């Protein structure tokens, strides 16, 4: 096992990894930017190195500075956390070239699964369902191709993102016009007007499967996480098990995710994301080749420690549990991402000093955070300041526990999304479990223009 690990990240996830290291008797090395000098991960680590100025590009995204800190500290392995360089195949490769173990999948698996088009191609080869669509770009035979996919369809920009070059077409007679509009929009936004067509999945839920695999050909898939509550594709609430996934669907999704992991010769942990339609059909979207923000949901449901598992797998150990154990559902768990944002002002960031802090606790409550009273939330990074995770014997009680714990959380000095979570949680559709990915925009942000 490693004696020392460098954590190439900040905030709550750096704290999470340091905690896992402590429990395993591994020394933890923190890195920080000038804006994070007073951050909790710096306080908790065994050693800490300032690697650059506040902008992430010059600090947390600076692989030369990160690996120099690893060299100076004598760390043997690098944990990338999530975000920043966690899904960067070049960084994974550079770690290995410089003699450090990258705590994540090998660069080859990141390239095979992490890049959207490559992941989809592998899913098709492996027989994992993907959203039906044209195999490549559409040309003059667009109508024939769209008919084959089946209406309603989405026209999507090949070099797309952020909703640009995206058109929903329900009626075949609108296709030609919408296709042209999408092409010119894509051309203006990305300098590339090429588009493709995909089936539009009505009222989808976002459901994902956590996987873990070792270097000995073993792979397991955990119970699903339902991340349907999103705002502008940012997850807000995640829960497990999903109120709409039956044991049959779960088994099929787990099998699909395992097949993909084995086909990509994946090792370490990862997440396979799917869209689930109201009829129980699911479609592969992409793979996140790293630890997820919402990993504590799975930890709470199964009682297994995913960060501990990651480190053991990276050290070359065999998977410490089998599929039967990974599938066990002991609790219902819900996670709330608390952001330093002002929900009344279009969720604009709300950095600043936290003058007073009261943290929730009690039975079935876990709080992953880097906050302390007197801490100043810097304006340079992601606005996630805490993850409140609850678990209980059933969904109804888990919701009550969430509401109770959210009420206990107090952060004076900054605006947070705490009350927004309480509103969402109390909505009749959330309570009944009948909602899709448009839920937040539909009921809570009616003027968001979506």
């Amino acid at each position, binding site marked *: 096992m490693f004696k020392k690990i460098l954590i190439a990240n900040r905030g709550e996830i750096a704290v999470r990894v340091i905690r896992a290291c402590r429990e395993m008797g591994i020394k933890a090395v923190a890195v920080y930017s000038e804006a994070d000098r007073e951050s909790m991960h710096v306080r908790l680590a065994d050693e800490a190195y*300032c*690697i650059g100025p506040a902008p992430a590009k010059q600090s947390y995204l600076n692989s030369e500075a990160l690996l120099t800190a690893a060299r*100076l500290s004598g760390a043997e392995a690098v944990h990338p956390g999530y975000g920043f360089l966690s899904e960067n195949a070049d960084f994974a490769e550079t770690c290995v070239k410089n003699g450090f173990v990258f705590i994540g999948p090998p660069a080859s698996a990141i390239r095979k699964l992490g890049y959207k088009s490559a992941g989809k191609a592998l899913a098709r080869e492996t027989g994992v369902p993907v959203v039906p669509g044209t195999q490549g770009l559409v040309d003059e035979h667009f109508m024939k191709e769209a008919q084959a996919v089946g209406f309603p369809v989405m026209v999507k920009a090949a070099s797309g993102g952020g909703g640009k070059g995206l058109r929903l077409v329900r009626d075949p007679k609108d296709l030609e016009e919408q296709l042209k509009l999408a092409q010119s929009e894509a051309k203006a936004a990305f300098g590339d007007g090429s588009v493709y067509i995909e089936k539009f999945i009505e009222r989808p839920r976002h459901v994902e499967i956590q996987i873990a695999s070792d270097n000995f050909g073993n792979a397991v898939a955990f119970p699903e996480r339902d991340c349907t509550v999103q705002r502008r594709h940012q997850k807000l609430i995640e829960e497990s098990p999903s109120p709409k996934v039956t044991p049959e669907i779960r088994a099929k999704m787990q099998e699909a995710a395992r097949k993909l992991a084995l086909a990509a010769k994946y090792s370490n942990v990862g997440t396979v994301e799917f869209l689930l339609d109201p009829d129980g059909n699911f479609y592969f979207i992409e793979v996140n080749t790293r630890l997820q923000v919402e990993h504590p949901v799975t930890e709470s449901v199964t009682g297994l420690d995913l960060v501990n598992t990651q480190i053991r797998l990276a050290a070359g150990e065999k998977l410490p549990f089998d599929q039967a154990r990974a599938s066990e559902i002991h609790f219902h768990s819900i996670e709330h991402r608390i952001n330093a944002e002002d929900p009344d002002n279009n969720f604009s960031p709300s950095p600043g000093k936290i003058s007073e802090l009261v943290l929730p606790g009690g039975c079935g409550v876990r709080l992953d955070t880097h906050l302390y009273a007197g801490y100043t939330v810097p304006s340079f990074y992601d606005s996630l300041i805490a993850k409140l995770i609850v678990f209980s014997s059933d969904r109804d009680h888990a919701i009550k526990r969430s509401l109770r714990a959210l009420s206990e959380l107090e952060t004076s000095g900054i605006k947070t999304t705490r009350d927004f979570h309480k509103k969402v949680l109390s909505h009749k559709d959330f309570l009944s479990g009948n909602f899709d990915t448009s839920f937040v925009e539909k009921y809570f942000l009616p003027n968001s223009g979506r």
Partner: protein
Amino acid sequence: MNTEKIKEILAWVKTTDLTSVALKEKDSGFSFATSEHADQSFADMPPAHYQAVSAPAIGTFHWSRPGHPQKVEEGISLPAEETVGYIETLPGKTVPVKVSSSGKVARILVEDSSPVAYGQALIFIEPDGK
């Protein structure tokens, strides 16, 4: 910095738990410490007009490339943009350490081949004309 402003700051300091305060504003400054902390505070405080040359990267500091002797000593004068040392980051990669303005080397804070963090003060320069 005028006397009124200093008085104002000291009055505020008395309302806090602070035992020492140092302030720098353009080319003037002052430091203050309660009696039990006075010794170390004053000893460590460089004069306000000194300029720190800090590490532009994390790494191992070298005064010179291997085989070349150290040129920088306290008291010598350096032109602006002069390279005073190198920081070795990864094997075969170095970042030069440069002086931003001309002046005399007032204090050396780092030893050859020692690890330095980003932003760490390496030497103090007394800029020309002060």
